[in-house]
């Protein structure tokens, strides 16, 4: 064959190689499955799940009374979120006589689908799962029910005191009123590798270099020092790494550093429920400069890290410290090779003039259940939502590994959850209680888009923090004007 023909063949093969190369060449990022050590309990084991009796006892009496022969239609986000409800269909039919029809919508289409339903005035759905950041928009538009009267009416059947206080305000309330039933209690917590921190040699070397003890970092300045100390690319170890893909929830992760830098008190630190801007220029610049410094101690490619990349790096010990959602995944030997070497704590903060430390962890994303105003079965829908938010169901949801995280005190105190979550329980509770919610006013998506766009440009080196702040404010003014 002539050279030109070889060239043609080469080019054709190169095109097709793209399809097959990942399997052949790429390094598999998935850790080799580790057998579950004896005595370790992980999600899915029968002994960590609630019994049928517990689940039956969790059904609100009014739901039992009114549900017979009724049918409810629910909209859930696809993936793990919908799994517990789908698995309860037969249980509810058998024990309540209630039929539930569940539509599972891909996450990226959830909002579009909901707004289509709302704007069409459809009464098709009785209960919907949503991201709390949409609550204000839906509430102001009159699409979802104010649930205050329902919480009052069924107070005897719901233990609201058991919901972690900070989380319920963050996820489920808007302007002081209940608009949702708690579902997925997402919160960012701070993880670190205990094997490194407990190593006497590391402790001595750190103290010699920085002049203070290597302990769990209380402040972001300490995180900076420790990130620098543990950045050792030749050992495949980096000091810090977290989710930084250009998605709106990456701004939530950044807010863990930004919010404690705000000098005074605030409600949200960005835009509060009254629509007032709380984005603080000085705190923004200081925090963003520090955040960019932390990124210098991260592996290459950090700006393209979504959840899978950051989960892999944290679970397999590639990074010494990380901010990530609280989840039992990191205590599961099947999913994280460093499952027994990860500790966690209260999100680091900023030292105040009086010596105290301000901690402001983000209630990043989260999920809640709402009742559309057009529903013809509002009471039933509310009560069904409460069943999904009951203690027994929250244990079921988290301990089946669905990814739906608890937000009840009693759930975190339950031995079965402690067995699966290990040391993550106490720090998750502490962070949930102090958590600051997402922006919830109408236009929240536009506020986030402007914020992450400018932040990401600064992280990519296209502009400094001050310019990023000014550009965010300029865009926010336009958004606010349009919302009026």
């Amino acid at each position, binding site marked *: 064959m002539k050279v030109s023909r070889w060239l*043609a063949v080469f080019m054709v093969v190169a*095109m097709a190689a793209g399809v097959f190369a990942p399997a052949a060449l790429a390094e598999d*990022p998935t850790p080799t499955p580790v057998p579950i050590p004896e005595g370790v309990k992980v999600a899915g084991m029968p002994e960590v799940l609630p019994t049928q009796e517990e689940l039956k006892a969790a059904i609100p009496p009014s739901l039992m009374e009114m549900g017979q022969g009724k049918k409810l239609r629910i909209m859930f986000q696809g993936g793990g979120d919908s799994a517990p409800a789908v698995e309860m269909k037969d249980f509810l039919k058998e024990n309540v006589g209630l039929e539930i029809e569940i539509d599972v919508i891909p996450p990226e289409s959830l909002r579009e689908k909901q707004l289509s339903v709302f704007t069409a005035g459809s009464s098709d759905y009785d209960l919907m799962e949503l991201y709390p950041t949409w609550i204000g928009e839906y509430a102001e538009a009159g699409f979802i029910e104010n649930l205050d009267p329902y919480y009052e009416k069924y107070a005897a059947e719901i233990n609201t005191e058991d919901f972690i206080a900070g989380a319920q305000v963050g996820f489920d309330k808007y302007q002081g009123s209940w608009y949702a039933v708690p579902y997925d209690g997402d919160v960012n917590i701070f993880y670190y590798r205990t094997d490194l921190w407990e190593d006497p040699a590391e402790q001595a070397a750190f103290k010699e270099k920085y002049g203070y003890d290597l302990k769990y970092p209380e402040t972001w300045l300490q995180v900076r020092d420790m990130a620098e100390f543990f950045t050792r690319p030749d050992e495949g170890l980096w000091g810090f790494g977290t989710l930084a893909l250009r998605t709106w929830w990456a701004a939530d992760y950044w807010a863990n550093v930004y919010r404690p830098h705000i000098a005074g008190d605030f409600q949200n630190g960005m835009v509060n429920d009254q629509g007032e801007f709380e984005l603080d220029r000085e705190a923004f610049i200081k925090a963003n400069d520090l955040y960019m410094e932390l990124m210098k101690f991260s592996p290459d490619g950090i700006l393209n890290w979504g959840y899978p990349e950051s989960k892999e790096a944290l679970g397999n010990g590639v990074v010494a410290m990380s901010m990530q959602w609280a989840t039992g995944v990191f205590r599961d030997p099947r999913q994280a090779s460093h499952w027994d070497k990860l500790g966690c704590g209260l999100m680091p903060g900023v030292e105040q003039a009086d010596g105290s430390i301000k901690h402001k962890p983000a209630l990043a994303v989260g999920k809640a259940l709402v009742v559309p105003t057009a529903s013809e079965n509002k009471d039933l829908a509310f009560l069904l939502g409460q069943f999904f938010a009951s203690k027994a169901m929250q244990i079921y949801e988290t301990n089946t590994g669905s990814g739906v995280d608890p937000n009840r005190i009693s759930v975190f105190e339950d031995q079965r959850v402690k067995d699966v979550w290990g040391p993550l329980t106490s720090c998750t509770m502490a962070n949930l209680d102090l958590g600051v919610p997402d922006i919830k006013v109408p236009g929240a998506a536009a506020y986030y888009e402007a914020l992450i766009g400018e932040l990401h440009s600064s992280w990519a080196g296209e502009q400094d923090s001050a310019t990023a702040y000014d550009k965010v404010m300029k865009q926010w003014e*336009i958004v606010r004007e*349009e919302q009026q």
Partner: protein
Amino acid sequence: MFKNLGNRKAHPYLLIAPTIAWLAGFIVYPLIFSIVMALKQFKLKKDLSFWDMPWVGLRNFEKAINDENFLGALWVTLLVLLVAVTIEFLLGLAIASLLNRKNVRGHPFFMTLLMTPMMMPIIAGGLLWRMLLDVRWGAVNAVVQWFGLPPIDFLGTIQWSLPSVMLVDIWQWTPFVVLILLSGLRAIPDELYEAATVDGAGRVQAFLKITWPLLAWPVMIVLLIRSMDAFKIFDVVYGLTFGGPGNSTTTVSFYIYKQGFSQFNLGYAASLSWIVFIIVYAISTLIIRFLRPSED
């Protein structure tokens, strides 16, 4: 009406009526609706019908002209058009010319292999290349490091992110260019080349005087389609970079998607779509004007 059925003059109208109805319902109405939408501010309010939403006139268009992010996305898209489509065309022409030769062994096999990227869903292509280009465990960096070079952060730096998006586009759509151009090459009679050879024409002359003029239609079609496609590039960005780092890979389609379906700013998204439509129309007109073969 039934009486008119017998009227021969009415027959043509009756026959085209279904087509007209289809066009009116599925083409004309949505177009008019989108124009009206571009002139309104989309408000979310229970029981507020679309027609009752406030008119804003040309304010959405005015906003677009001053929207730095939109203009940035437009620039990114034009770069993709200029660089990626040009490379796709040149590479496609080269492969098609080489595959057009006689006696290429295993031709059907190579054609099937060549079509593989095109057959793959675009979003899957984006996700696949996200893995391939990963700085730590990607296959491409495995090759880079095999040559003793440091790994390249293809997706996390503004220098490499847009070229990476272009690379995926080139990988996925060059086969389409090959397919069209190869069919054009196959349609050229061998006799013309034989006659040219007899007349003493060399390869370059034969290409310039025979191949290129007779390939004019396929070339125009392929550039027209790929140019229009460049403005619709979305899935690759969604799967590969989500528009980042910064706004370095945010294309107009991706930007309009976020305006429309993330922020539900439908009026503004409609106005942006019309601006893009006008630009695409202008580019298409230029391509047709300059590449359309003469009747001679």
